[in-house]
């Protein structure tokens, strides 16, 4: 076990953790363990490695990849993993300390963001810093799978041929979705290829499929309680400049927003939420990565045509 190679300075806390992990763990399997940070990457890793390894995804469904944290037991598991797969590019803020600790402990790591051509945020306070949300472009995920497959195949106890075969098939599936998305978006008139949104994750999708991302202040509930024309001015001009009929936004009161736009500015639009940073739970509509891509594609095309 890896525990034997830990530096002696790692203190009693670590030993206690290890003991508690052993005591609690019921899996007792001999398969190698791959620990994955985000649920999107967790799904991709499971598709590629299949039954050859036990995949432990740390981030729950419907969660926030930036801020989710792990239990002491999960952190211990991470340090003992045969591979730790993370998104990187600053995404896992709540987890970074444990990721660093696992690396220090010698757990091999794979950072997906290092396998892709990274875009910087175009504007806002984060302008110029790397955008970690590469998964909105399935082409970027192909790059990740092609870099990841040999690493998974090289884990001791994994049948490399099985992983290579599964990776090839998953890349084909990603290519298929990428083509479906292109075909679907092709039906959107050129002059309406704009995402007016408060989602911040669609830079990669926009780059691949030639959308303009128009950031807009989406008035919140306190504003919509008693709105004025000036509250909606920024959003209205974004809608009018782009000619879109849908705004892609997370809002706790989308109906109120639609109503306020109609009443105050005589603008008729739909407010459509998209899946942004997390897979959903069962029945949520984005149970796996490919389903998430397809769901967003249908919503974007539906909203803009």
């Amino acid at each position, binding site marked *: 076990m890896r525990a034997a190679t830990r530096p002696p300075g790692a203190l009693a*806390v670590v030993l*206690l*953790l290890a003991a*508690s*992990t052993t*005591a*609690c763990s019921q899996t007792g399997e001999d398969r190698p363990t791959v620990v994955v940070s985000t649920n999107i990457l967790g799904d991709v890793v499971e598709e590629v490695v299949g039954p050859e390894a036990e995949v432990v995804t*740390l*981030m*729950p*469904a*419907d*969660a*926030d990849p*930036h*801020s*989710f*944290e*792990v*239990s*002491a*037991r*999960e952190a211990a598991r991470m340090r003992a993993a045969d591979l730790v797969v993370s998104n990187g590019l600053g995404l896992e*803020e*709540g987890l970074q300390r444990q990721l660093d600790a696992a690396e220090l402990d010698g757990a091999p790591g794979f950072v997906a963001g290092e396998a892709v051509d990274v875009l910087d*945020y175009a504007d*806002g*306070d*984060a302008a110029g*810093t790397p*955008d970690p949300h590469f998964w909105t472009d399935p082409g970027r995920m192909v790059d990740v799978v092609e870099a990841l497959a040999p690493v998974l195949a090289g884990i001791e106890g994994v049948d490399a041929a099985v992983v290579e075969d599964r990776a090839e098939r998953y890349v084909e599936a990603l290519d298929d979705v990428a083509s479906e998305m292109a075909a679907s978006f092709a039906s959107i008139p050129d002059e309406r290829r704009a995402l007016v949104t408060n989602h*911040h994750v669609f830079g990669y999708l926009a780059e691949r499929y030639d959308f303009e991302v128009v950031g807009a*202040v989406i*008035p*919140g*509930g*306190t*504003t919509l*309680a*008693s709105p*004025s*024309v*000036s*509250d909606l001015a*920024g959003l209205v001009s974004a809608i009018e400049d782009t000619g879109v009929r849908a705004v892609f936004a*997370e*809002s*706790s009161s989308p109906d109120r927003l639609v109503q306020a736009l109609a009443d105050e500015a005589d603008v008729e639009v739909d407010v459509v939420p998209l899946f942004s940073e997390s897979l959903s*739970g069962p029945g949520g509509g984005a149970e796996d990565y490919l389903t998430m891509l397809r769901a967003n594609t249908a919503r974007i095309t539906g909203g803009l045509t």
Partner: protein
Amino acid sequence: MNLPLPPLSRGTRAMAAVTLLAPALLACGGAPSGPDPAGGSPAEDPGGDDHGAVEGARELDEPALGLTTVDPGGRVRHLDLLSEDTTDLARLPGTGAASTVHTDGRFLYVQGREGLQILDSGVWTWDHVDHFHYYRAEPREVGAVPGGSTSTVATTTSSTSGGAGVFFTDSGEAAMLDVASLADGETAERYRLETEPHDGMLVPVGDHALLTRAGAGPGSERSTADRVVVLDAGGEPVPGAEHACRRASGTIATRVGTVVGCADGALLATVTDGEVEVVRIPVPQGGRARGAAPATSFAGRDGRPTVAGLAGPRGRDGVWLLDTREQAWRLLDVSVPLTQVTAVDDEDEHVLGLTPDGRVVVIDGTDGRLLARTRPLAARSMASGTGTPTLVVDQQRAYLSAPAERRVHEIDFADGGRISRTFPTATVPALLAGTGR
């Protein structure tokens, strides 16, 4: 470091954080680890104890904006600005009215005669710079921090991690609270120091901190600080890291860095690769700014880079805007006296002020022009000195408490200072803090 400092005596509470780990280690059987806020566990959290997310908290589509008030009897109430419901949060123990309240947008630090009480409003925002995430958990009382009857509290832009510095100005005791422990319902202290009583502060900067030191040199005033030292994560002075800061007063954390006001400008502290870097932003000396009084407190929209402060009593010399990103001051010539000022830092650079007759004025932050003024909303409070009328600003709305009038007003500053909503309060809202931010 060879400095004529009184020794920093250290408490034993630093160990508290370590012992907190213990319960988590035992929690492998499926029982929730740590104190569980009743009803706070979200139904959609599939992992129970084992999966992190943010334990006991639910993520929201938009911020759970609220206002928390403290009345003279110590009753703390929370007004939900979305549902417009009011809930009782706590009844503070002890006698005597609370004198100040500080918030980081989540935790409330209420100073009473017998010490500092900390409450968790249960609503907060996580600032990722490129975007935000919003959370709601159960509100609760966290606990008391002993040490004095007057304090300055300094917090960071994060209400889930890092430290919160409490400086008891009457006793000189300074405690660095562990914010993650507050989220767990405990008031663990990372360290506690005894210093000269003075008008000082202990300001968290990453895992480090800035601590003011009382004036010691010839001719300096002992009641105010004349310098700031950098402390490491354990509360020990970092050798050589000392910065002159005469009459240190006022601190605020923006997403760029942490500001401490001095008589001749401001210090801006940032953390790069675990090291604290402190730069001095001197106030301009030429033109209209010649001889203008320095800002002694700072206010702005939560986390925004530009903050505002009054230049002299009642803004006699105008309003200072400090842009922490550009590291630059700007002095606005404002035509009315003000008792309070805050920066919205929106596209139109709105600045809001409170006049001595209880009106909110909307100021153009580019040139100091008065864009709008409300009717007197807190005239009686201002005239009678009832409570502390307080301005809180969001991106599109501002709030003003009017204690004697028993009202909280919502102001649409971009629409001519229109009063968009008014909330009556059951008792005198002596103190006000904006939460969920």
